[in-house]
């Protein structure tokens, strides 16, 4: 799959060149242990034009959008926004959805009621399906 590094930079709305590689984002990241590319490496790779290598990374799906990295980055880099932009590129091809309508029934009870907070399904569709 192709990815346009400039597209990532534009849609994330953040300037990765401000990164000083201090690692505070990764120190703050509660999902660090679940990631192959923790936020400071993720940002560095996009800065070097290597976004394509991130399209299949585990980090896309273990980042929890908790904004701890955004809050604590001393340079205002907003790593969560960079991850989101790559995630959106990874989902853009047909069939790349993370969730399909067929996946929903297991979360519904006998009367059609939702067994998990409804926002989990809403966010799964909004985030993982284009």
């Amino acid at each position, binding site marked *: 799959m192709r990815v346009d590094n400039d597209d990532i930079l534009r849609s*994330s709305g953040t300037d990765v060149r401000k990164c000083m590689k201090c690692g505070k984002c990764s120190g703050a990241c509660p999902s660090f242990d679940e990631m192959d590319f923790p936020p400071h490496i993720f940002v560095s790779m996009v800065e070097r034009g290597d976004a394509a290598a991130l399209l299949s990374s585990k980090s896309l799906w273990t980042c929890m*959008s908790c904004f701890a990295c955004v*809050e604590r980055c001393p340079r205002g880099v907003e790593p969560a926004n960079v991850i*989101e932009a790559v995630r959106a590129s990874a989902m853009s091809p047909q069939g790349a959805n993370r969730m399909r309508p067929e996946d929903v029934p297991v*979360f519904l009870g006998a009367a059609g009621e939702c*067994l998990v*907070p409804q*926002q989990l399904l809403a966010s799964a569709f909004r985030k993982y399906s284009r």
Partner: protein
Amino acid sequence: MKFSYFPGCTLKAEAGRSGETAISAAGALGVEVTELDQWQCCGAVYPLARDEIATKLSAVRALIDAKRAGLPLLTLCSACHHVIKRVNRDMAEDSDVRDRVNSYVAPEVPYGGETKVVHFLEMLRDHVGFDSVAKRVTAPLAGQRVAAYYGCMLLRPSSAMGFDDPENPSIMEGLIAAIGAEPVLYPQRNECCGGYLAIENKGAAKRRASEVVRSAAEHGADCIATTCPLCLYNLTENGAAGTMPVYDLTALLANALGLHVEPSSGCAAVCSVCSERNSAHAC
């Protein structure tokens, strides 16, 4: 004191009773809350990509309806608050988003972020006042050591949310003290519980939620209280798993005000302790 209210999908559906409990507690404090006549799900995730417009429209429609009513817009669910507050800021500050949204929605007067978005906790702190809350308490939770759990979406990014000090918040502890309980500080109170991963990666959600519960227990908490319906679910189902009660803070408030509700322990799904499928029961 009057507010328009946006309940959102989760509080309207499974956790319905916790939304109603909060609104009746507000009523007991002299706050008049009117649900918007019509609203759509906010989408639950703020669209970070700058070029997304369609996913902001339901928030904008709710904001415009509140503006028409001439009232601030009250929220309770953390996700709704996060999305609506940030979209409102975009409408006020990002002329590109504002122009594109207004040309699509075509309201009678262009919308520019005029509505004030107020979270339930902010309403208690800034409009009612914790002192006034304390004066109305008839059944104080004396002797309870309550660990407030903030989660992410109310606090961060603080530049957009302006909710509380993002690293040392105090609003929930203020309310816990007002209802007569003892607030417990612990390191994980504003670290993510992983609720967002609960469908796709339950293992990761469990590791995160358990860490939050462990941290609260280690610091002497009797129970955890939160206002976020997703955190309530995740901490209960994937974190505490029966080892510690997790309550909806607004239900504790309602009880302290003498409204006698069952404190919802977040069992929107099948409760792991008693197998009851009920969002409002104590187990």
